[in-house]
């Protein structure tokens, strides 16, 4: 009988069904509802923007894998698609297309491939791309238009985002609009409801750890609440804090990015709390109206230390 053609591999010999590809593509699927809502509110231009960022992300990934002489089939592991979609979700819907392409290129090239590809990047690629665009095109990055009436509409009135309105003019957007997404802002900033739904699906599938969104949103709520209690005239209430801006998207899709968040449960809680504190500091005392992006990028940079310092207590460990 055949003794020669037997595979010798180390144990185990069976594996959980889910590999990187499965996780990534199902995450993509969970992003579809907020994307559709974004297109409904901001028109086909928003769809075009998404197509551009996703295509550029895939192309960049392919180019760099080719340059680095790596297996190019990794292009389709879904991670570049996620980066593309997330970037589109956090850009103003009318952002210039070629500028969006530059941002998407930067996100993949400098946010991911330069570090050695998926798994080795320190910063969340989509957020890094967004931060780059913020510095490269500060005007275009901060001009938002209100939702349109018809899907083909081209009305280009600018409208302040709820956070900008709050910070500079102390105008509060109604909660119901924040929840449904009928406000100015980027696609992913608007519909808190659909993002929560997608996030709950990810938690159910265990693609993300519930500790991260909970500690992040919880910290923003509590700390925001403390300031609100100190001076309700000057500071917005905690519910506004968690519904407005990109906090929901950040809490379910950005801070939960496996590669750039800590590995251990305890480390994740510390990470979420740290990012939450940064959000409040930036929103209330910083120059920018929104702090989600920088809060996560800042915590990205301390993530390696968290992972090094927090080591789980072993079974049967005798600590002196």
């Amino acid at each position, binding site marked *: 009988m055949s003794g020669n053609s037997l595979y010798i591999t180390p*144990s185990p010999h*069976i594996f959980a069904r889910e*590999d990187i590809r499965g996780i990534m593509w199902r995450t993509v699927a969970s992003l579809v509802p907020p994307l559709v809502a974004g297109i409904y509110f901001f028109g086909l231009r928003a769809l075009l923007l998404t197509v551009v960022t996703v295509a550029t992300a895939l192309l960049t990934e392919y180019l760099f894998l080719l340059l680095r002489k790596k297996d190019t089939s990794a292009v389709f592991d879904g991670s570049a698609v996620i980066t593309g979609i997330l970037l589109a979700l956090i850009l103003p819907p009318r952002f210039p297309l070629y500028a969006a392409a530059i941002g998407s290129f930067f996100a993949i090239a400098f946010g991911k491939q330069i570090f050695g590809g998926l798994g080795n990047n320190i910063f969340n690629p989509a957020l890094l791309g967004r931060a780059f665009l913020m510095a490269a095109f500060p005007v275009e990055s901060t001009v938002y238009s209100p939702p349109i009436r018809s899907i083909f509409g081209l009305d280009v009135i600018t409208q302040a985002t709820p956070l900008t309105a709050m910070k500079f003019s102390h105008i509060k957007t109604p909660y119901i609009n924040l929840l449904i997404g009928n406000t100015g802002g980027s696609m992913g900033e608007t519909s808190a409801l659909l993002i929560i739904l997608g996030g709950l699906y990810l938690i159910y599938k265990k693609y993300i750890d519930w500790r991260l969104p909970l500690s992040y949103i919880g910290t923003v709520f509590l700390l925001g609440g403390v300031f609100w209690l100190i001076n309700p005239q000057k500071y917005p209430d905690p519910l506004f804090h968690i519904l407005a801006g990109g906090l929901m998207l950040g809490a379910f899709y950005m801070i939960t990015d496996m590669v750039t968040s800590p590995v251990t449960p305890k480390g994740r809680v510390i990470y979420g709390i740290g990012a939450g504190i940064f959000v409040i500091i930036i929103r209330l005392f910083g120059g920018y109206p929104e702090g989600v992006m920088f809060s996560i990028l800042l915590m990205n940079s301390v993530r390696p230390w968290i992972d090094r310092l927090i080591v789980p207590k072993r079974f*049967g460990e005798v600590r002196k």
Partner: protein
Amino acid sequence: MRFTFKGGVHPPYRKYTSENPIKEIGIPEEVIIPLSQHTGAPAKPLVDRGATVYRGTKIGELQGFISANIHSPTSGKVKRVFEWPHPVALKSLPAIIIEPDGEDTLDESIKEDADYLNASPQEIVERVKEAGIVGMGGAAFPTHVKLSPPKEKPIDTLIINGAECEPYLTADDRLMREQADEIVQGAYLIMKAVGAKRGFIAIEDNKPEAIEAMEKAVRDYPDFRVAVMKTKYPEGAEKQLIWALTRRQVPSGGLPMDVGALVQNVGTSRAVYHAVRYRMPLIERVTTLTGGAPANPGNYLVRIGTKVEDLLKMTGGLSEEPVKAIMGGPMMGIAQYTLDVPVLKGTSGILLMTAKEVELPRERDCIRCGRCVEACPMFLYPTRMAHLIKNKRFEEAREIGVLDCIECGSCSYVCPARIPLVQYFKYAKAELRLLAQKA
């Protein structure tokens, strides 16, 4: 209430053979008895080429404290003492090769002791030692050593392990259904030998028939109870089992006896019964032949030393070409390079997988999803340890606990990047042993 531990994974059961009753197969044309079938020093051969042996004749004598006797599984002539492929070492090791005469004549030393229930603890341990019994769950640790704990570490709890958490394997399940009384009697003898006060028979809740059979069998033994465990891998791992049932943590680097517990596999328990009552050495065992390749998968009572090749021949051969042959279960079993390897005392199953069943993992970079951390039943930090080991930082890996790894494979199983984490830990353990020897 179901007992369970923290961590672990949920592999598919794939217990295809749980409805196949244990079937005895005959005597193969050749038996291969490796001198090393257990943890510890190999046995010293007592016979040479041409010697006549009988069923149960002692052919190898234990050497040193941790070692075990070996016996001839049938009558016949010793063909030679030579090196033969070994299924655990994955290289050729000395073995006694016997050509059976087909008579299967019993060795005259094997006589029933009608008064076996009154055997003293010392007698029980002595007969177990003589019979060459080792842990039959897979680890193959000499049982008489486990039955002789030092005075300062008294054992109060005996756990008979029928969890059988490895997918595919059903040998213990069948044994519990068919030989419940013998298992319980063996357990009673073990309890007597170590002076334990209570006993658990731990079974995962996906084996209701076995639970029922065992519950019936322990009815007359007030100190015993059947503990129904949650079906989760590795529920049958010694330290996890003890914690699930007693909430005692075996200290890092320690043994179950440090927390007053003793764990024995159901098969071992039955072997103890046979050794004490009939003075029958461990020369056969129930093993599961399974996977997509064998024509007739099932649970077979196999003589120790039967080659996998012969086992297949005697059960009707293959229905499909196997691409992977595993001794043991799919989680911890060892892939073989040849089907010439013999069944050992610790061989709980033989898994022959077809191309359709086998996933050849392609390793990618860690995406730090943290699933390995959640899955590790020892609460270790697999991804960080693997990272350190890749960079040859063994000392640091030791500091965060690589030596505590029980090699259950849960981390590798869940890893979406298919990183062979356990393999790294085995490698680091070997390197650390070398370093310790040098120092």
